[in-house]
């Protein structure tokens, strides 16, 4: 759908086309009902109704791409085995999940059926060597074993295939046959950004907008005990003016966070999270792999490094047979440098950026890895490692159920 078509109010669309049209406009302008109505020619109340009934109620969420580079952050990933007694610290909902937030972890999940954990950190590049060292120290302590490290620094989310989305299913009626796949000739990545100035208030606002971009700044201010006008000023002058958030994207999985319950819905029955991860790729291999992964609508996000690559896909369970065939065609030529891993979605946790790791006085990100290491050492020396964390987990579970 070209921008011209979108602007034409005269063009009347059918009910399904209309929903796709609105979704396409949301990707351009966000949830701006009057603007969508103006551009599409659909009455504002109809747009509002469709947004509420067909998007919000399906738990699809409109989010904005956070430009991590502007905040001076980039990703690094570790695949590791943990001491079985310490597994509880890797799960969300525990009191001690805060340990990982101290280490800039933004994604943790268990790989099944292997007993592996995948941890992705979003930290200043200067801290990446420190994180490697920390893991090495934890290995020496016998707490965990790192199997692989990946430098997939930039995260992007491909545009949702709005035009092909089947609202009846809902999903994509996708033809997996190799002849039907049309890998794009080239993939346009957003240009690299330079770090910008920001402060702790900006980060607090950003953290909340990462959950849902359609939150009111006044609500965010109230939650964080910030003066409303001050929060608004920071949002306009810093967050917005410096374009810290990039384009709009849609969480099409239907796992949007229920603000009232404060929990994300699990849809692990309908989609299987399968990640494709590769190391030491040449630039030609990288291009080829990415082109193939972009030829399916189920590519949700990708982290790209100089030679490492991590793609996050959500495959409908009904298409698993075809999807494995698809992955096999990409994997085999890479001869052991790539693999696919199945994510245990029931224990996976995504973290937003942590403003507590930004020092307001020095206006710099801080590194607490040494403190974490010390805590581990003390716990080991006291013989409380494992049992205390288990107790902590139980408390956490009680707190959650309460």
């Amino acid at each position: 759908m070209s921008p011209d078509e979108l602007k034409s109010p005269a063009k009347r669309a059918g009910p399904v086309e209309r929903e796709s049209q609105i979704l396409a406009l949301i990707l351009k302008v966000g949830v701006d009902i009057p603007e969508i109505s103006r551009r599409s020619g659909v009455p504002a109340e109809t747009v509002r109704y469709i947004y509420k009934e067909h998007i919000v109620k399906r738990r699809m969420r409109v989010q904005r791409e956070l430009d991590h580079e502007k905040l001076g952050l980039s990703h690094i990933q570790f695949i590791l085995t943990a001491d079985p007694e310490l597994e509880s610290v890797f799960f969300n909902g525990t009191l001690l999940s805060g340990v990982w937030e101290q280490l800039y972890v933004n994604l943790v999940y268990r790989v099944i059926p292997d007993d592996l954990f995948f941890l992705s950190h979003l930290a200043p590049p200067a801290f990446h060597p420190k994180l490697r060292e920390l893991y090495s120290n934890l290995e020496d302590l016998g707490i965990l074993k790192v199997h692989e490290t990946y430098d997939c620094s930039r995260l992007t989310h491909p545009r949702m295939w709005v035009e092909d989305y089947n609202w009846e299913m809902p999903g994509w009626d996708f033809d997996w046959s190799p002849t039907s796949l049309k890998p794009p000739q080239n993939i346009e990545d957003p240009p690299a950004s330079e770090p910008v100035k920001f402060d702790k208030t900006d980060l607090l606002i950003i953290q909340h907008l990462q959950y849902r971009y359609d939150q009111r700044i006044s609500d965010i201010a109230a939650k964080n005990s910030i003066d409303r006008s001050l929060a608004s000023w920071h949002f306009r002058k810093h967050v917005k003016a410096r374009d810290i958030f990039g384009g709009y994207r849609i969480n099409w999985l239907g796992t949007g966070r229920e603000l009232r319950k404060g929990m994300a819905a699990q849809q692990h029955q309908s989609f299987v999270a399968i990640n494709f991860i590769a190391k030491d790729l040449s630039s030609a291999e990288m291009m080829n792999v990415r082109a193939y992964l972009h030829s399916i609508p189920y590519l949700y996000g990708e982290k790209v490094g100089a030679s490492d690559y991590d793609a996050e896909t959500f495959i409908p369970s009904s298409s698993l047979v075809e999807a494995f065939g698809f992955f096999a065609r990409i994997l085999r030529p890479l001869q052991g440098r790539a693999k696919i891993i199945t994510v245990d979605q029931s224990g996976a946790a995504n973290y937003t950026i942590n403003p507590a790791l930004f020092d307001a006085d020095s206006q710099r990100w801080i590194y607490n890895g040494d403190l974490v290491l010390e805590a581990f050492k003390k716990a080991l020396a006291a013989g409380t490692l494992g049992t205390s964390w288990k107790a902590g987990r139980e408390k956490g579970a009680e707190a959650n159920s309460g």
Partner: protein
Amino acid sequence: MPSPGKEEDYQPKFDNRNDDLVRMTKAILEVGPRIGEVARCVGIHKETVRYRFRKFFVERGLVVQANLDYQRLGFRRLIIVARLADAYERHFFPIMSALSEMCYLTGFMQTTLEGLYILHVVVPAGLRDECSRLYETLHKIGIFPEMQILTFEEFRSVPMKPEYYDFSNGVWSFDWRADELSSVTLISSGKAEVEKYDYTDLLILKEFDRDASQPLMEISKRLKLTYKTLEHHYRRHVLGRGLIRRYRVVWNGSTYNQRTEKAGSMRHTYLPMAVLATGLADWQRAKLQAGFNQLPFLWFEASGPSYYAEVFVPLESYSELLKRIREISARTGVPIRLFILDYGKGLRFSIAYGLYDPERRVWRLSAADTIARFENLIVNVNNQRGGEGT
């Protein structure tokens, strides 16, 4: 409609029927699709059993096959995990067919992601070492550049667990969250004495291995034997000597092509997977076996120093199965290798009756002929590639 005053006794018709079908299936697993006997076992009218067998089995593609008692036939199983050299990949079908004709290959599947082949070789016990050496030779001459040969003393097709199957809708209902059973009673494959049998018995076994619901008359016509001879061999030898050990209901959608004598499969419903664990202590093997036998989706298992199992998991239960495998692996402390299987590149052959010498009543294995045939293949492929190169 329930009569007045009897509402508390009223059960929906569907539930009763499914219970009847469960009992009927269990009877079929014991005695085969012999309608009269099944009707007697379950106490349902013969015509009702016949109707239900046609409606819920035949029309839904649930074939009943005989489980041959390979122990009584004196066979052992090798499972070979091998990579076919790239040059021969496009010839995989003739290569596998040749192996089935000459080297007791009874089935193979390709693993989707790794591109390996899992070969099932069912070979007379006396020829096991020779057969194993023959496959090693194929590895040395470059047909299979990677090869791991695993020997299994016991193997079995796992009986269907009909209590988890909803026959009306053709779906499984298994509660993954339910507590695991503390113990599972496994039906031992037994280590029976080797029985006598002849070529005609093998032909009958081959037919029943394919479809146990075939009438004897039909089989006699196909095998060009008189009905009397066939019935004598069937009753006296096949049944009398216990060469068939129960029956299996092919619930995983595999189909059999009568013309080509090859098994195919129905995709899109189940994801076929194989699990392999090697270097096991006895207690680890027992725990693995118990863990997998709790799943209604277990299709085949073999144990020896290693454990191998094939599982057909409904697509929507894929993640749950992986979680369960992780738990089993953690409990036993055994790393489990998992393969996704591509049944599009897999076939199952019947017992290798062609390798039985009816005159001398012995099984044959000609290593020299096999090697010569494969060396000839290498020359042909190399010539072909040379031709393509020029």
